[in-house]
């Protein structure tokens, strides 16, 4: 077994009390990337494995299959144990475990008392590589996912978000709903899903991150024991299609049993590896994070047009989304849209101020360190980002944000804030 052992001192630069935290980074012969960090704050161990497969990899035939597969791996058993036995074993070892599917990746986490680290890695490997999901069990899980689709359809902002994605991205893989359609989730054959699983769930297509009250060297030996013999697989390609350039405003109205209107205005942003990424996070913060942000001040505080308003940029492997969201009375939708656009236009023309930029930097820096405070969150964040942009993205993020100048931010604002080509989705009372 060829081991490339790299110990990297990652200075987390926690202001006032710098904490040096060491990652031990290893790539097994079979291609599995392993990152281990000792963190002795609480007597727990947290494991997160991200697989480089998401809804973006699905053809229409496999619509929703990535998410269905995540459920089957979590709940429906392996070659060694049934779903019920697996769940009982988790309970017996005090384990919290879960999974998440996005357009870019699928993520599995387990968090439990530190003395159960052996169990955690053994069962984690068993689930990732030896899941079995018999047809009868799979049929039961299909129904649970149909209920999850019901939940997401009932959520007004969730509905507006997914509807916007579909129109915004067209043939681009991010147009796909991660949950898939009820019809496809109900009918996609078990053997096809199993073949999909075997294609993507290979160690060379994964990153495993372990953070906890552990001995890093001993933990690495356990990883080698449980993951090392899994054979390398193929390296599947993404199904990437460039987004069609937008030239107009698309308007979608959805009527639901709601008491207020929900508005979303969405445009396309840069890829994760774009240098614009950092400045756009600052732009989104200056626009819509906090009561002193541009949109909040204008539309909520000054004009009282909305109940709430915000702006966000979603970082993705490929082109992410920049969107404004608001809750309001249905009668004010057009006025709010015009006012949002006037705020954006003013920024494109006159730019932000240095004070706004510094404020946004502090906000982002605080949020970044807070997001790494819990061991499970830290493991999860590194595993997810490593799957599509590299863990270095997380390490370098605060410095990259700090280096953005006002000129950079204003240039990025001019480039991505769009007042004449976006998707506007509203959910309004019936």
């Amino acid at each position, binding site marked *: 077994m060829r081991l490339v052992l790299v110990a990297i001192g990652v200075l987390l630069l926690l202001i006032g009390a710098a904490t040096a935290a060491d990652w031990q980074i290893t790539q097994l012969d079979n291609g599995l990337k392993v990152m281990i960090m000792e963190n002795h704050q609480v007597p727990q161990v947290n494991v997160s494995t991200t697989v480089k497969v998401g809804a973006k990899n699905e053809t229409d035939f496999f619509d929703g299959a990535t998410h269905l597969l995540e459920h089957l791996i979590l709940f429906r058993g392996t070659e060694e144990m049934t779903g019920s036995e697996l769940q009982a074993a988790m309970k017996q070892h005090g384990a919290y475990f879960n999974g998440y599917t996005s357009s870019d990746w699928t993520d599995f986490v387990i968090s439990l008392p530190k003395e159960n680290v052996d169990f955690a890695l053994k069962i984690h490997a068993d689930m990732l590589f030896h899941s079995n999901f018999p047809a009868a069990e799979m049929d039961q899980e299909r129904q649970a996912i149909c209920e999850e689709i019901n939940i997401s359809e009932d959520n007004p902002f969730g509905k507006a978000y997914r509807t916007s994605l579909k129109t915004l991205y067209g043939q681009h893989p991010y147009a796909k709903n991660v949950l898939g359609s009820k019809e496809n989730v109900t009918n996609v054959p078990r053997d096809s899903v199993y073949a999909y699983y075997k294609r993507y769930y290979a160690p060379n297509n994964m990153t495993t991150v372990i953070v906890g009250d552990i001995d890093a060297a001993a933990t690495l030996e356990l990883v080698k024991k449980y993951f090392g013999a899994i054979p390398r697989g193929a390296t599947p390609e993404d199904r990437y299609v460039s987004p069609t350039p937008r030239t107009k405003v698309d308007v979608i109205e959805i009527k639901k049993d709601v008491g207020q209107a929900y508005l979303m205005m969405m445009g396309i942003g840069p890829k994760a590896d774009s240098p614009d990424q950092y400045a756009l996070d600052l732009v989104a913060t200056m626009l819509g994070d906090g009561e002193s942000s541009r949109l909040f001040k204008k539309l909520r505080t000054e004009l009282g047009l909305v109940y709430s308003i915000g702006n966000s940029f979603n970082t993705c492997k490929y082109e992410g989304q920049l969107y404004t969201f608001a*809750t309001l009375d249905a009668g004010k939708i057009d006025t709010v849209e015009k006012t949002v656009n006037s705020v954006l236009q003013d920024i494109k023309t006159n730019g932000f101020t240095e004070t706004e930029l510094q404020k946004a930097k502090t906000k982002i820096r605080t949020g970044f360190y807070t997001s790494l405070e819990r061991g499970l969150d830290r493991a999860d964040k590194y595993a997810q980002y490593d799957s599509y942009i590299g863990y270095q993205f997380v390490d370098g993020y605060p410095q990259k944000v700090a280096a953005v100048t006002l000129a950079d931010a204003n240039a990025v604002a001019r480039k991505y804030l769009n007042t004449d080509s976006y998707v506007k989705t509203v959910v309004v009372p019936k």
Partner: protein
Amino acid sequence: MKMKSLIFLLLAAAFLLQCKVQLPTDPLTIGADGYGKITLPNGLVAVVNQDKSTSLSAARIIIGGGLLTETAQTNGIGNLMIKMLLKGNSSMTANQISEQLDNLGATVSADCFRDYTAISLSCLTENFDKALGIIATSLQSPTFPEEELTKLKAEVDGQIKAANDNQTQASSDLYFKTAYGDQEYGLRMVGNPEVVAAMTAAEIRAYFEKYAGGKSMVVAISTDLPTEQIDQLIQSKFGPIKAEAAAIPAPKLTLQSEKTGFISFDRNQSFIFMGYVLDRQDAKGIAETNMLHQTMGAGVGVRLWYLRQTEKLAYAVYTQWQVAKYATQFRAAIGTDTSKVRQALASLEREWDRLVKDGITDMELANAKVNMKNGLISQIESKAGRANNMANYEYLGYGYHFVLDQIALADSISLAEVNDFVKTKLTNDRRYISVVGKM
């Protein structure tokens, strides 16, 4: 000359006496476990956790009252009051406060709960003193400007509408309304829209002056600052707050005879709560409730999981437990297709009945203990989580160390004790149901 000296001595004595009154009996000390507690002369209790692992700090400031000080005619005043504290003080306007807090990268929230209202703060330690200072100034000298109240009412109106649109929240509110009716714990924490619309700034100020004082307040801080600096920060920010606060009498809560509440909603799913409304429990009773939660509905592989895994009724089914000053809740939650509501209700009833009839097993108890301890550790892993838990349990009378005490207590509880709790506490007259959606 002698007279002057005497006057001087008397003045000096009076001054020293005054100084003595303003100083706490003992300075803050932090134990080997990183925790400490201090009571200021104005009665305010500050509980502290010192943790040097990160340069983050968090605080939670509780003002006693919440729904316990509201009636159906004033429902929403606590929510408005706590939010108005951030809308102007003697040295800053609302805009200046939000601008400054944003400048400091502070995450701040202000909300009403059953037993109190609370402001939570988290930020980098380098900005903690300033951010806490802004909040403390608001606690000492809020201005309650009319024009800000008008804006806030619109915001709260949106908050109420959003809560109504959320089936889980709407069903949860309905559950408490079903159990307690218009009594304190049956009211909505966001308030009643008509009451909120009619509320005046003068009424909110009067409410603040009546209930906000050192005697009714608990402050919890989790930070990496040195002990002396924490001590100084507590004294300077919270020492000047007035002591007086109206006592909050224990409510006379009577459970309602109608056990099921229903609101019609045209959605794909209906959301159900079914569970038990208990009186205040002691530490052991809370640990037992948590163990039952771990057995019935915490995570995967628990008893209620059968409704999802085998009966195909839901995406998620779980239990929740909540501690208030005069009550403890333990309930199951399920979102299910509107065509399956009857079946879901029958399945929940079946599982509750089975629990009451047979109790839990040895193995379930062993599993519950390990999961309970791990879950509690996760609750206090972050500084914000620690500050919130410390403040909450200190105010509710269980002590700021309660989460750690629960972890220590877990192993001493026997199967017979848990099953006795089931038999004596989970009685049918305390079982309530709420359904939002279609029946």
